[in-house]
């Protein structure tokens, strides 16, 4: 229990299956507070399912999922988990297309989430200042009043990260943040994530090995719903099991 108590995220023996297909089979993972972890693995390794379970979208058949060592995430719904401080960025950038960039951030800003509160909500000065600050961070100040649907793909990815930050989560789950980005954008994103990591724990799921190398953090390799290897990128990349999985058998 010590390991669990000192972790921000603790998964133990998590298994789930859909109609007989075992998406996860005994996945165990520990993220320490302030840690950034990269998770890699081939398609079907269970990366997205793992995210679904942590954020309450999918319920595991068995296993433990604890947040901050004590909160059982398997009993809570998505909204509660998000309010507790777990933010999630999707693989496909999903921003609110018919809202402006600014409104996207307003909606995400940490605040009372009840319908009554939002009905009579009016922004305070601190909130406005915070949004300006975020806009600067994600380099979208000049597009603050544009509809999100008019942003480029990379800008949408950044807006989504901005929305994540606005929630002030303790733990960020980031699913393929650089998919479809140019090399320059990829490097900038890596820098942004490292910046975020100064105050928050981050879990990054990514295919792009160059990006993972750029992050320079501990790597976990998933395969067929379980952890195959764990360690620094160079150690993992030389693991024969990992090579076999990635290069075919």
């Amino acid at each position: 229990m010590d390991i669990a108590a000192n972790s921000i995220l603790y998964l133990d023996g998590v298994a789930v299956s859909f109609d007989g297909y075992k998406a996860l089979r005994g996945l165990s993972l520990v993220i320490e507070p302030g840690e950034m972890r990269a998770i890699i693995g081939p398609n079907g390794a269970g990366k997205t399912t793992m995210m679904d379970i942590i954020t309450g979208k999918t319920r595991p058949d068995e296993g433990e999922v604890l947040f901050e060592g004590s909160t059982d995430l398997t009993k809570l719904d998505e909204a509660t988990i998000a309010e507790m401080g777990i933010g999630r960025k999707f693989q496909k950038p999903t921003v609110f297309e018919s809202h402006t960039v600014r409104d996207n951030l307003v909606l995400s800003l940490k605040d009372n989430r009840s319908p009554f509160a939002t009905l009579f909500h009016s922004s305070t000065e601190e909130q406005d200042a915070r949004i300006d600050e975020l806009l600067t961070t994600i380099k979208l100040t000049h597009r603050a009043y544009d509809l999100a649907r008019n942003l480029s793909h990379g800008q949408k990815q950044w807006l989504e990260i901005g929305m994540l930050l606005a929630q002030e989560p303790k733990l960020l789950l980031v699913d393929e943040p650089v998919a479809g980005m140019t090399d320059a954008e990829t490097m900038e994103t890596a820098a942004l994530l490292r910046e975020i990591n100064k105050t928050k724990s981050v879990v990054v799921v990514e295919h792009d090995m160059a990006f993972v190398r750029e992050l320079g953090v501990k790597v976990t390799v998933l395969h067929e719903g379980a952890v195959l290897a764990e360690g620094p990128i160079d150690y993992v990349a030389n693991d024969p099991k990992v090579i076999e999985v990635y290069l075919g058998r």
Partner: protein
Amino acid sequence: MGGEPNSDMYMSNEETVSPRRHWNETVMLQSLKTPTRLAALLIGALVLFLAMALPSVAQSIDDAIAKLTTDGYSDTAAAINALATSGSPRALPIVQALNDGKLQFSASDKKVFIVTATGLVEAVTGAPVATPPADISDVRANNRIRGLVNAALGALSLANPDPQKRIASADAVFKSRDEGALAALDTAIANETNSTVAIAFKAAKAAIILFKADAPVNDRVAAAQAIQLRGTQDAVALLRSLPADTPKPVLEAANASAKAIEYNLALWSMAQNAWYGLSLGSVLLLAAIGLAITFGVMGIINMAHGEMVMIGAYVTFVVQEIIRTRFPGLFDWSLTIALPLAFMTSGLVGIAIERTIIRWLYGRPLDTLLATWGISLALQQTVRSIFGANNREVGSPSWMSGSFQVGQLSITWGRMWIIVFALIVFAGLIAILRRTPLGLQMRAVTQNRSMASAMGIPTAWIDALTFGLGCGIAGIAGVALSQIDNVSPNLGQGYIIDSFMVVVFGGVGNLWGTLVGAMTLGIVNKFLEPVAGAVLGKIFVLVAIILFIQKRPRGLFALKGRAVES
């Protein structure tokens, strides 16, 4: 089914309806539409004519008639015995007339006459007599004759060549419990070969003995048990109506017997409900199965589905109209002819709708819903403009009329065929999807459109054909539903909500789910009806489904997993 129309004819025309059949007679009369009833009448008349023409029967009747004209008691007695054993259908009315004092004779003509409400008729031929002979007088009867007449009457009706009539007279005895009939019953039981009739005889005898205060207690107990054979509601009433001063063992036996019958009846009524439920379920299945393709497999919300059913029903109407005016002999084939035509018509209308409207709306389910609702309004109005707003008469071919009995269950051929038909359509559809190239391509397109397209499957055409198949099946359903529902422009509207309920309840994208869903809803509905009434039962079912969908949003046999959700 050769013997069936005959017995129906007797039941509906001669009003000698046995109690055990009485409760389903209305059902049968409804199912017997006018033309078939006429035909049955004619056949009946023919049978009667043949029976009268038989020479040997005529012989013995003539002897008896001759003896009736001598005005001597012993000759009359001999005549009665001769009549009783003649087996002639005219014997009963003659003896009956003698019993009622309405038999007259003319010694000079050597003829016997019956006085009826409309005038004098010749006893043997039944022909009316315009001017009565001058020397006409009543056939006289004394006590001995009256006793003989009574016995002959019982024996005659119990020995009628028609089993239905034997049952009817046994039932009459069961009701009257006339002790004078005991002897005749014993003879009849000894001679009876038909087991159903034998049971009726035995029950009648048991009824007499049960109420015979001077019969041995043991016999009465046995009789109480024997009545159980009859197994109907009036048997229960009879058993419960024993006087309070009846010996205790008899009362107890009667009570036990009544309980056994009631238990049995309850079982049968459950079976009947289940049967009605299956019947309703198969109607729902027919209505919903096309939707299971368009909505379940393709994900198109076709609110005009009911109108495809309606088109099928109108195709049936048109086919029958043409057959009536041009080829009346083909009437029994009308449904068979209508089936492919209905499939083609509804299918083509469906393909036209898919090509012109729905294909522009793929990926916009709510817009599809509205557009197809608009189509349904337009189709209804079209049919209303062409055929008028009133119900159109669609007849049933003879093989769909009538009914048969399984125990206490009355099964109409119409319902029977619809159930069979629904299952055939279901099996056919499964076969199409599983075993034909079209089915394979359909499944490929619905599962992964871009992959299918990359492999050279013409996805647009497959969409159109799949939609056409779903609509065509709705058309086929319309042919069947024209037999049990009013064919009017509103026909489809009545089915659309039910059909969606069935598909959603059964689980979208799963044909077997649709089958189970339809049958479950049908049976639940029919079991609720006696308890809650038809409307309330239907409301309960709707509410139950609404609640069920909240519990399992994707139906009974839903697919799980990420692929479904995204």
